[in-house]
């Protein structure tokens, strides 16, 4: 089973990376973009999707500062374009 875990800073936790990107956008002509938040995505294959919340709480995310969402992409799905890195 392919799963994606999206991890982002909790609301209320200042995200200086997001702020920096937000401030850069108007200088490129992109107006009206607000509340940019930068997190990370983890893709993984697992035989036990039920264990994912526990796995997220214990390692992938720090629940004190981050929220996470688990997206089950499905059986037989492939990561990205299915190629090995560099292939």
């Amino acid at each position, binding site marked *: 089973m392919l799963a994606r875990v999206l991890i982002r800073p909790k609301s209320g936790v200042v995200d*200086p*990376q997001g702020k*920096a990107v937000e401030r850069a956008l108007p200088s490129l002509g992109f107006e009206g973009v607000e509340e940019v938040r930068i997190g990370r995505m983890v893709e993984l294959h697992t035989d036990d999707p039920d264990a994912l919340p526990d796995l997220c709480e214990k390692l992938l995310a*720090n629940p*004190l*500062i981050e929220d996470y969402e688990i997206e089950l992409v499905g059986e037989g799905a492939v990561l990205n374009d299915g190629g090995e890195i560099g292939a």
Partner: protein
Amino acid sequence: MTRFGVIRFPGSCDEIDALEACERVGEAELLWHGDADLKGVDAVVVPGGFSYGDYLRCGAIARFAPVMERVIAFAADGGPVLGICNGFQVLCEAGMLPGALLPNEGLKFLCRQVELLVDDVDCAWTSACEPGERLSIPVKHTTGRYYAPADQLERLEAEGLVVLRYAPGHNPNGSLRDIAGVRSEAGNVMGLMPHPEHAVDPLTGSTDGLKLFESVARLAAPA
């Protein structure tokens, strides 16, 4: 004489300075992250650096190192444990200290001497300090902004668990309430972002960092 153990993870870089700081007040030896053995030391220092390449989050992988299981048990039995910089991040990730360290407000790596105020002397590592004492100790980090949710911050303040604060005008990274170091409820575990092990020799301008190591050496072997 107090025997200090300094843990070396892959990616640690301040373990030798920490070792030498400990040797000024006692005996010290390196402990290896892969060994589930503290070799009978009286105090443990989790040093600074970039354990496991800072992958995922700073300290997130190191907390699962075999040696950390023993450090957690050692601390639960009242053993003194000090986490410096990356070591502080490791202790927070391991749940041994409250809060978390976030990227600096300015997103830059900072390396500078800062002034600290000792807020609490009921901690094993500041017991040789005076309340309100000013210490000059360097910081060098990218991920040092202390954060805890509002309710936890209130609890920290109420219970006196904030050990060190940046002096007014010296908060380099946007840490909440100017917090530079915190301790466990029992007072034997402490973490701080500044580097006391880099402030033990007059050659580098300040010997104030030595006080933390002296505190534990004195506790263990009262004169």
